[in-house]
């Protein structure tokens, strides 16, 4: 095809150009449409990767089975979140929580963040990957603090400090990987290119690689929100604008996880290193149990679902830590399902918090009576995320449990206990939100329900029927991860 730009260049170029345009253009109507349009265009470019075939890996870009899943998911949720954001921001402008200057800033940062995340996913250079994660982090820090309330500033400050510490650890790990690769691959940029590293990983010094992985999993694990390092996550979710909470939970955590998975592939390629599995299993289980217990004491609806995100990231890291074709498949499926479901939940929570004018759980009651569409959407979303059949989350959790039972029954017991704890907490809160005497504002509202319906429809579809080609594709990725 004689096209000047390939899909990869478009995935990066569209958000970059859009960010510049959005920074200078005035007006709510124009900019929110531009934001949606740019996100849609990036999604189409990503989808084109599936159709036109993959470009060969270069020194800068790499597209393989693994990151196509991430790229398509990333741009898709980026698009739906932009649609939701258009409706959400209109309300924020009316109530005066956001001024027009901040609106411009918000939209530009949204596209900078999409650019950063897409760059992490398509890059072939581990140094560039680190830079891109830093970029995505900084742009989200700015968005978390955008309301400038004391709470938002504290959340942003905490996120910034913990995020920088994690990023610093990850850079040290990246330098160590280079140091391990340099005697084998020679000096210079070649020793930072992932496709050069992977085939020769077996020749690297295993001790340096071990140390590097510990730094990398702690560093990027901070961004994934794994348990001892999660402290920034609930605050950042609760105090920022809700579209950002949806994107943080649905995308940014995945992007950090992607980095961990890449380095895990490097570790498994070298037989003399520590097995990365036990480390990941431990961190996953600790996150799961801890977050499940924390769910019981939440009094803020966005914090509640932020802890639920920690729980699910724990589940996913656990599945990838178990490894093997089935657990990897289940982990990948769970990641996709969690992204779709959790962002859908945040879409509904965003409208709910706007209607009630509060995020306090005590002030949100009887939603199915006062606002049936939103209320029932929340019920369906929470049932799906808690792992009820027939939704996709149930499928993936079931696969993880069954593959774990056949290999390590004891771990499976802990895992199931964690799931049940979380299930109980979510159900307890849900009955409060959805039923009983309605409180607060009872006026009907204009909400953008389409993104919600699309996400939940996909999750339901995945729970009932997974198309054959998709299964084959995910299986290929699962084999790639080892």
């Amino acid at each position, binding site marked *: 095809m004689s096209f000047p730009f390939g899909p990869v260049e478009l995935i990066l170029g569209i958000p970059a150009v859009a960010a510049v345009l959005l920074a200078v253009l005035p007006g709510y109507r124009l900019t929110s449409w531009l934001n949606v349009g740019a996100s849609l265009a990036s999604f189409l470019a990503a989808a084109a990767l599936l159709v036109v075939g993959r470009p060969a890996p270069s020194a800068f870009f790499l597209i393989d089975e693994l990151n196509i899943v991430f790229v398509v998911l990333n741009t898709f949720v980026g698009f739906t979140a932009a649609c939701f954001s258009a409706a959400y921001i209109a309300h924020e402008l009316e109530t005066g929580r956001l001024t027009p200057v901040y609106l411009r800033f918000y939209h530009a940062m949204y596209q900078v963040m999409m650019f950063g995340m897409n760059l992490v996913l398509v890059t072939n*250079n581990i*140094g*560039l990957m*680190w*830079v891109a994660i*830093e970029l995505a982090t*900084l742009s989200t*820090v*700015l968005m978390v*603090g955008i309301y*400038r309330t*004391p*709470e938002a*500033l*504290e*959340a*942003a*400050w905490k996120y*910034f*400090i913990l995020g*920088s*510490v994690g990023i*610093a650890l990850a*850079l*040290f790990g*990246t*330098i*160590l990987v*280079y*140091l391990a690769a*340099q*005697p084998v691959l020679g*000096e*210079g*940029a070649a020793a*930072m290119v992932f496709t050069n590293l992977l085939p020769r990983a077996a020749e690297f*010094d295993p*001790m*340096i690689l*071990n*140390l590097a992985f510990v730094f990398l999993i702690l560093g990027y694990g901070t961004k994934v929100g794994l348990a001892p390092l999660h402290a920034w996550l609930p*605050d950042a979710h*609760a*105090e920022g604008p809700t579209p950002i909470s949806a994107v943080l939970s649905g995308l940014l955590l995945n992007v950090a996880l992607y980095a961990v998975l890449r380095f895990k592939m490097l570790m498994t390629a070298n037989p003399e290193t520590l097995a990365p599995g036990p480390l990941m299993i431990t961190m996953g289980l600790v996150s799961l149990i801890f977050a499940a217990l924390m769910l019981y*004491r*939440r*009094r*803020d609806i966005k*914090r509640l679902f932020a802890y639920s995100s920690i729980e699910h990231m724990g589940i996913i890291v656990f599945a990838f830590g178990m490894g093997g074709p089935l657990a990897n498949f289940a982990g990948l499926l769970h990641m996709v399902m969690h992204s779709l479901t959790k962002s859908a939940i945040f879409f509904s929570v965003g409208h709910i918090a706007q209607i009630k004018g509060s995020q306090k759980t005590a002030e949100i009651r009887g939603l199915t009576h006062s606002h049936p569409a939103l209320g029932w959407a929340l019920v369906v979303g929470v049932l799906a995320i808690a792992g009820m059949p027939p939704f996709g989350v149930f499928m993936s959790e079931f696969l993880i449990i069954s593959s774990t039972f056949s290999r390590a029954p004891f771990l499976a017991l802990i895992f199931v206990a964690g799931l049940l704890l979380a299930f109980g907490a979510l159900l307890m809160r849900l009955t409060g939100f959805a039923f009983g005497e309605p409180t607060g504002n009872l006026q009907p509202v204009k909400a953008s329900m389409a993104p919600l319906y699309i996400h939940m429809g996909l999750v339901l579809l995945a729970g009932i029927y997974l198309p054959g080609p998709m299964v084959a594709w995910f299986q290929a990725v699962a084999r790639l991860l080892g």
Partner: protein
Amino acid sequence: MSTLSFDIAHLLAGGMLLVSFMMIYQTRLYALLNVFALHAVMLALSVAWQAVVQDAPHLYVTAAIALFFKAILIPGALHRIIQRMGIHRQVEQVVGTGATMLLGMGLVALSTVLMLKLTSGSDALAREDLAFALSIVLLGFLMMITRRNAVSQVVGFMSLENGLILAAAGAQGMPLVVEISVAFSVLVAFIVIGVFLFRIRERFDSVDVTVMDDFRGEKR
């Protein structure tokens, strides 16, 4: 590699470590900023020396960035911020100086033992540089943890970044892309911090981070 060039590299990296310790016992903010500037000068010198030893001219750029940006520009700007905002000029500590120094020594011992043991295969300059770098990184963490004051946390973070750049410069032939980006990200980070400091001032009339804790969204 001649013994002399090796010794000089050691001297400079060791000097950075020493300055890291000096930062721990500063009790006044201005003094802390001056010591941080010294830290950045030491960094510039050791990166420049690496450029000579490795015959890698691009490292001079990194050294220049460290010198002008971190040793002159940032401390100067922070001086002005403190002056203009009338920030309390004492460094509030969570843990006493003596205990922090002891902890710091423990961290240095830990990182030296860890790095020298694990990287026995690589060349001596790289591994010993890395041991110093890890010590400096850990001391930076320690400073961020044991200080309450937002400005001194920022200084701790920047000294941590200095340690990372030392590590990157010590790794033979590490590509320039990364080093420039490190410096660049510090720039970005600084802007962010600057913005935050001003906003924090607007809201709290204090840059003491504990004041912010009172505004936690969720009281237990």
